[in-house]
């Protein structure tokens, strides 16, 4: 893409680079590209590109979904958050992992049995409405771009960490270009193998440093026990004097607030309003619940995850895959909080930095502590962690790119613009669309440097929770749903969640001391308003608690009002969604090898 201007900053930056970190990162990128090229050769049909020929086995698919799911926010963000705010941050890994249970229980099997290529396919097929496909496509792109921005930020900051002095945008552009190439060459089949491998890379890159660090500095429980309410209690709990905890800077939250529930994260709004701790507690409980709903329902509504279920051979395989995904990501999510805890005890100076220069880089930085005692091993460990971070944002971005590209090439081009196109034409379109969307993503990624990774991810989840989750859940299980009901609920819920997220973002950016603060200065009075109405602030920052019920309620009310529009063959549609394949009712919604135009 923009190769010539790259060489200069690269040459300058290369001076201060740790060779081990560089080697591990380069190997990750090289393996990704090589595997992409290799599997690109076997991607031939349109089915290969969109749903990997529907032939991905349970083990591969589970690894691939897990690899795709564990993003920059999971790999770097969670450890940083646990370090920064303590107990309340644990809800993130738990809900990221457990949201899959909802997918497994209610959505995975039926969705696969319907036999579509994309979620918009499902939306159109379930309601016989081309209009609804258009609405669904918009949401795929919308949620996709929202979720792409934090991945790009992760890429930019990690590269800036590895090459001190490298401009932020270079990292974004390089990673964007590599992944776009991969996706354009191999489509879904190409990235399945890469993502599966990247899962194992990530679990290796997070667990090995944890085990080594724990062996040197003491285990999970021991390091937590140092964070006790009173010094007397602390003295009783700590037997390990070999590695005493370092002093916390003034900016770090106190032990009591850090380790107990309803800490700094959930009491921020109440503190701004100067409420007493007693008054603040119910608000914290509300915040916690809303966060849980957003994360659990949002997981079950992310289009780039959902599209993967279509790559399973059948509904039974889809269910088995989901179970393995839960185990794989559950194992992963135990580790980042351990790093957060160790970071609080042994790298407290990071509390003084902000964002990418602060607790967010604890996963990359903490292994270097080993350097003092074990020399080069510390660099190797840090290199492994960097390789994991690379794998994290590369795999998630490639998944997002495939789902967004699929929406454009299959739904917009193949279904709306040129319904009589041949599979070859649509495959060509897939490649063009991949390059286009890759370029837009890089552009967007360059704009979001001041925003926090986890915060942006949370917003993408909140929007998905209020739009796609209600749509899928209700469409699969309630035969009385009509297109109008589904559209009304999904649009209202999604747009309100988006507005709430935008308002919170704007008021946060207004506090920024850099150029962004000037742009968003008109929103500064909003912070004044929040200070007087902490409840409204919480409902705006975490909107899921009201948007999800609102969306489902609207779907029911509007569907009842338009009951005459229920599709005529609803009984058959429900059978296709729920009947086991062995009954022979299955009828792939999209059939590749039919005579004529492909499908």
């Amino acid at each position, binding site marked *: 893409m923009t190769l010539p201007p790259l060489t200069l900053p690269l040459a300058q930056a290369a001076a201060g680079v740790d060779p081990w970190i560089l080697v591990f990162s380069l190997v990750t990128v090289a393996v990704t590209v090589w595997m992409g090229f290799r599997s690109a050769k076997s991607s031939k049909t349109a089915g290969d590109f969109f749903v990997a020929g529907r032939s991905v086995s349970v083990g591969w698919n589970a690894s691939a979904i897990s690899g795709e799911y564990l993003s920059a926010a999971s790999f770097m963000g969670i450890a940083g958050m646990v370090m920064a705010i303590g107990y309340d941050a644990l809800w993130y890994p738990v809900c990221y992992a457990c949201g899959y249970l909802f997918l*497994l229980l209610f959505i995975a099997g039926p969705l696969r049995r319907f036999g579509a290529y994309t979620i918009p396919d499902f939306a159109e097929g379930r309601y016989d409405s081309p209009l609804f496909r258009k609405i669904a496509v918009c949401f795929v792109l919308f949620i996709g771009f929202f979720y792409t921005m934090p991945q790009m930020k992760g890429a930019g900051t990690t590269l800036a960490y590895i090459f001190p002095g490298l401009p932020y945008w270079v990292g974004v552009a390089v990673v964007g270009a590599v992944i776009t190439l991969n996706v354009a060459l191999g489509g879904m089949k190409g990235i399945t193998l890469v993502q599966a491998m990247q899962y194992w890379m990530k679990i290796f890159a997070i667990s090995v440093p944890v085990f080594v660090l724990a062996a040197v500095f003491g285990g999970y429980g021991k390091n937590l026990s140092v964070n006790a*309410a009173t010094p007397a209690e602390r003295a009783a709990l700590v037997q390990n004097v070999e590695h005493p905890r370092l002093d916390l800077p003034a900016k770090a939250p106190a032990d009591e607030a850090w380790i107990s529930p309803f800490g700094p994260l959930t009491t921020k709004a109440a503190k701004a309003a100067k409420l007493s701790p007693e008054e603040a507690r119910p608000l914290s409980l509300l915040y916690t619940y809303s966060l849980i709903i957003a994360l659990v329902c949002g997981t079950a509504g992310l289009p780039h995850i959902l599209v993967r279920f279509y790559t399973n051979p059948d509904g039974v395989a889809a269910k088995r895959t989901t*179970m393995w995904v839960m185990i794989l990501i559950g194992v992963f999510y135990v580790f980042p909080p351990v790093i957060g805890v160790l970071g609080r005890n042994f790298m407290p100076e990071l509390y003084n930095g902000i964002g990418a220069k602060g607790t967010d880089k604890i996963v990359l930085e903490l292994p270097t502590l080993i350097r003092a005692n074990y020399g080069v091993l510390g660099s190797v460990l840090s290199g492994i962690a960097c390789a994991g971070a690379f794998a994290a944002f590369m795999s998630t971005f490639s998944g997002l790119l495939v789902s967004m590209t699929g929406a454009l090439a299959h739904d917009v081009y193949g279904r709306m613009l040129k319904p009589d196109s041949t599979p070859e034409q649509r495959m060509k379109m897939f490649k063009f669309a991949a390059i286009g969307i890759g370029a837009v993503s890089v552009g967007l990624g360059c704009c979001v440097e001041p925003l926090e990774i986890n915060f942006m991810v949370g917003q993408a989840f909140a929007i998905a929770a209020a739009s796609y989750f209600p749509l899928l859940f209700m469409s699969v299980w309630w035969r009385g749903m009509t297109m109008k009901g589904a559209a009304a609920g999904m649009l209202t819920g999604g747009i309100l969640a988006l507005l709430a997220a935008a308002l919170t973002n704007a008021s946060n950016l207004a506090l920024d001391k850099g150029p962004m603060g000037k742009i968003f200065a008109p929103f500064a009075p909003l912070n004044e308003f929040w200070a007087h109405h902490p409840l409204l602030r919480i409902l705006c920052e975490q909107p899921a608690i009201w948007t999800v019920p609102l969306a489902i309620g609207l779907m029911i009310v509007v569907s009842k009002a338009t009951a005459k529009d229920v599709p005529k063959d609803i009984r058959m549609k429900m059978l296709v969604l729920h009947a086991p394949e062995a009954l022979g009712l299955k009828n792939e919604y999209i059939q590749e090898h039919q005579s004529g135009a492909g499908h």
Partner: protein
Amino acid sequence: MRRQLVLSTGCALAFLIALLGLPLVNYLAPAIMAKRVGGFTLAWLILGVLFFPYVWAISFHFIRRSLALEASEVKEARR
């Protein structure tokens, strides 16, 4: 389909009780949840470690029952 829905709902309830109950217990009985177990506070141990195996157990149970239900559905339909 109805039996599948009953099964799904049952599993979801077991999950939701734990997920939504934990903040409530944290809220109502902070002293108990702050008790130390091997260095962890009870609240931390449950959320940070024990929650994952619990969810695995639910999903394992669900898969087994759900696939058995499908098999019996097929059998009934073939008769």
